């Protein structure tokens, strides 16, 4: 049976990956995601999986490329500077239509930055996760239980659409413990390539040879490949957006926030409600595709929208695009690893709603 146990977000991600049939993990140590590696190095050998510490972030993502190319569920994890190193490999993974899961437990940047929680990789993950025309699925959980649940979803959708999926967490979510439930009796079954006819895992003299590749030297051929991929992205956009609306029904001000900041925003909204301000929180769970319809519904009664992030303002661009100038969108954020407290968010809400409370 499943008993609630306290786990760090990073550990929950790792355990959930195993339960999703992730057979191989390739990673490189970096704070604040190291618990993922530490956990899997213990667990993987016991469940018939593979844990390998790579010589670099670049090697780790290319191990994922090879493993995913052979049709096996696999994962890597890192934190911001390490993800920058992986972007080359992620581009090749997208270009070769390979499914895999990549975890980014964000820390402050740019450069070496800091090791405290941050959300300053939003642009990177949603708009430029490597060179070329492509997207990755991006999930932004906000509780430890959701970290676990999202991993399964990420693997399933990555397989379904043959594209990389990213779980965008941050140091706060990775390090904090909350109750999480795993079914103790569930059988752990490592993935195989049986449902992946495209996999390069040895043709066994039963089919033509498979080629995993992203090189198309003829412009027209490459265009065709990319256009086909973008048609698939349209399907993803139409059917895979996820979001949560919290007390938005009557909200005159909606706070848009994702991940750990959405939790802080909820606390701020509770404080605002106590002061008579009708406030709500809109929380995108998928950052790509961005839940455009859902945010418009959530903001139906809102006079104003406030985006709060642990950055200088990145998701706010997508919020503005999605709302298409229908109402004013302002931004409040802290960066560098500073966590915006509920009281600070409340002050901004009051500042915005002061005139027409």
């Amino acid at each position, binding site marked *: 049976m499943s008993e609630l146990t306290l786990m760090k977000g990073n550990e929950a991600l790792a355990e959930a990956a195993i339960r999703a049939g992730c*057979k*191989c993990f*390739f990673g490189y140590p970096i704070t604040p995601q190291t618990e993922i590696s530490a956990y899997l190095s213990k667990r993987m050998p016991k469940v018939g999986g*593979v844990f*390998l510490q*790579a*010589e*670099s972030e*670049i*090697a*780790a993502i*290319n*191990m*994922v*490329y*090879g*493993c*995913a*190319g*052979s049709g*096996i569920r*696999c994962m890597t994890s890192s934190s911001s500077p390490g993800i920058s190193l992986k972007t*080359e*490999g992620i581009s*090749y993974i997208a270009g*070769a239509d390979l499914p895999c899961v990549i975890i980014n437990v964000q820390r402050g940047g740019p450069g070496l930055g800091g090791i405290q929680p941050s959300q300053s990789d939003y642009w990177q993950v949603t708009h430029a996760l490597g060179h070329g025309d492509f997207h990755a699925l991006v999930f932004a959980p906000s509780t430890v239980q959701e970290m676990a649940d999202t991993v399964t979803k990420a693997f399933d959708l990555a397989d379904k659409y043959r594209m990389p999926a990213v779980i965008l967490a941050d140091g706060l979510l990775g390090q904090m413990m909350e109750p999480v439930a795993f079914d103790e009796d569930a059988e752990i079954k490592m993935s195989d390539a049986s449902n992946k006819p495209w*996999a*390069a*895992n*040895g*043709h*066994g*003299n*039963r089919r033509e*040879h*498979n*080629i*995993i*590749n*992203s*090189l198309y030297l003829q412009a027209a051929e490459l265009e065709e490949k990319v256009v086909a991929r973008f048609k698939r992205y349209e399907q993803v956009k139409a059917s895979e957006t996820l979001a949560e609306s919290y007390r938005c029904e009557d909200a005159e001000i909606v706070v848009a926030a994702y991940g750990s900041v959405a939790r802080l925003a909820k606390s701020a909204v509770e404080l605002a409600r106590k002061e008579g301000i009708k406030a709500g929180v809109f929380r995108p769970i998928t950052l790509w595709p961005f839940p455009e319809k859902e945010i418009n519904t959530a903001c139906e009664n809102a006079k104003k929208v406030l985006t709060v992030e642990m950055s200088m303002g990145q998701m706010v661009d997508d919020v503005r695009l999605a709302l298409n100038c229908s109402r004013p969108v302002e931004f409040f954020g802290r960066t560098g690893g500073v966590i915006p407290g509920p009281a600070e968010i409340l002050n901004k809400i009051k500042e915005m709603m002061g005139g027409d409370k």
Partner: protein
Amino acid sequence: MPEFKRPHALCDVPLHYCPGCTHGIVHRLVAEVIDEMGIEGDTIGVCPVGCSVMAYDYFNCDMLEASHGRSPAVATGIKRANPDKFVFTYQGDGDLAAIGTAETVHAATRGENITVIFINNTTYGMTGGQMAPTTLPGQVTQTTPYGRNTSVEGFPVKVCEMLSQLDGVALAERVTVIDPKTVMTAKKAIRKGFEFQKNKQGFSIIEVLSTCPTNWGKTPAQALQRIRDEMIPYYPLGVFKEGAIR
């Protein structure tokens, strides 16, 4: 007498290599070994960035195209997930010994149970003949127009010598393909690499001294002669390490 024909593991397509280039010979040797061992259905190849970038169209086994230098990491990912399959990489000198040095050295020292076919032709062929990590001292290339000056550009990397120092390496052998005798030796070395892999003995690398007549500015015959006269003296042929590590 066995009939001379195309090995099954080599696709029936025209190769794009230049006249006099020895890639074709090495491709054929790898394919012959795969045929003779009967492992085409269980083999997965990884090709590099460089002249052999499109080798995925030439080998009849399953193939992956890696990004520049990352073949040993890609091969590691395949092999760890599929330990009973045969995995080989086919890489040039820029790919293996410059941009991919870290991946090469670490796959080797882990004793990754893969076979690496390493084509050393002392130049970047595909991009038009720039200096490679293996370019010989004094050699003129597009980016060493006055000859490789070791006080400026440093010295060539002797890959087999370097890797033979690592405990994870089961086989490090340098061969060439300039006449029937060396071709036979090269084939034996490649076979040995795959046999080592079959027996799960660790990392094997077969370095093949190869020609690049186009970028060397030589005829095919002159190119073969250059291997004899200039390359073998700097990169001696032979076995640098051989033995089970497990």
